[in-house]
């Protein structure tokens, strides 16, 4: 019971800290689920992020459904998913009421706060990179996929469809592993 409550609160905090898109949220999700709640391991966190990036939907919602289900079955998944969606929508509703129909007042105010958050968002992305880059160090195969992916992102084909690149990355890793070319799992 207390666990369900803690889970609900964790996902509410995640939703309120999710500024600037899914990738920015990764350090926050990691902090709440791995460090604070200790509901999933570092390894499961990375697997969860991988799954979230190749399935539809926002990463915060994907994590909520994933962790919620593992903690408490379908009710857990519903609870966590609801908690990650609800708070921002409440904020928006409050904003709409406060701006009381005056066009561009709400969005104008917000534009200033976005400028204020920009350096912090960049910092979060760098932290997310450091967090995810961990397993690359011990594995030449993964390092190769990383570098090639970085180059592939210059191509419009992948630039506009990152999930395509991710699927390709996974497939290449699988091929390298099955052919015994390089050791993927080491590290």
């Amino acid at each position, binding site marked *: 019971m207390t666990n369900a409550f803690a889970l609900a609160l964790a996902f509410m905090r995640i939703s309120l800290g999710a500024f600037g898109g899914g990738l920015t949220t990764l350090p926050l999700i990691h902090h709440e689920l791995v460090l604070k709640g200790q509901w999933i391991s570092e390894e499961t966190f990375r697997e969860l992020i991988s799954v979230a990036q190749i399935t539809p939907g926002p990463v915060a919602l994907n994590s909520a459904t994933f962790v919620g289900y593992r903690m408490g079955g379908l009710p857990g998944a519903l609870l966590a998913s609801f908690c990650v969606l609800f708070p921002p929508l409440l904020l928006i509703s409050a904003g709409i009421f406060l701006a009381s129909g005056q066009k561009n007042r709400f969005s104008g105010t917000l534009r200033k706060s976005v400028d204020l958050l920009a350096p*912090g968002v960049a910092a979060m992305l760098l932290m997310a990179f450091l967090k995810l880059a961990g397993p690359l160090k011990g594995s030449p195969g993964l390092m190769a996929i990383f570098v090639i992916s970085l180059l592939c992102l210059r191509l419009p084909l992948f630039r506009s469809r990152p999930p395509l690149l991710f699927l390709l990355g996974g497939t290449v890793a699988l091929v390298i592993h099955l052919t015994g070319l390089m050791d993927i799992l080491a590290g």
Partner: protein
Amino acid sequence: MTLLKLFLLYFRLSLWAFGGGVVLLRFLEKELVQRGLLSGEDMREILTIAVSIPGSIMANLAFLTGKRLRGWTGAIVAVAGTALPPFMVILIVVRCFFGEGMPSPGIRVFLLGVIASVTALVLDVALDRLRQLPTHKPQPWLVLCSVILLVLTGIHPLVALSGGAGLGLLLSGRGEKT
């Protein structure tokens, strides 16, 4: 547009919106703006709000466009339609691949490959954001460094982010409310 049609529209778009908010935005522009259900100006204002309010840009976009189309009920129906496909997909994935003693080594290797590519995207986006920061002013960089330091001390990222925004506000010298 009936509520059922609204629900089905967002359900369909969300199912194909791999890659999140940006992709959904493109779909919505095609389905709503080009068909004259929403003006381009409305869409721009909605986008500004959706990206600056915390939370998933997808859900925020659905809520705001749904509200514009069918009022508060429409807003909730649009969010439900948007949230349901990812919810179902993750349930299926967890049940099929993440049970006892799973994921299997094959899946594990596949996901490691995925994460290597995701890491590349994260770095790419991070560098993009860094490039967008004004180079002639020291303030943003000061904020950037302090947020990184705060996160490294193990403080909650949300606190670090708010601290950074507060510092930015102080440094900017404009004390007025944002």
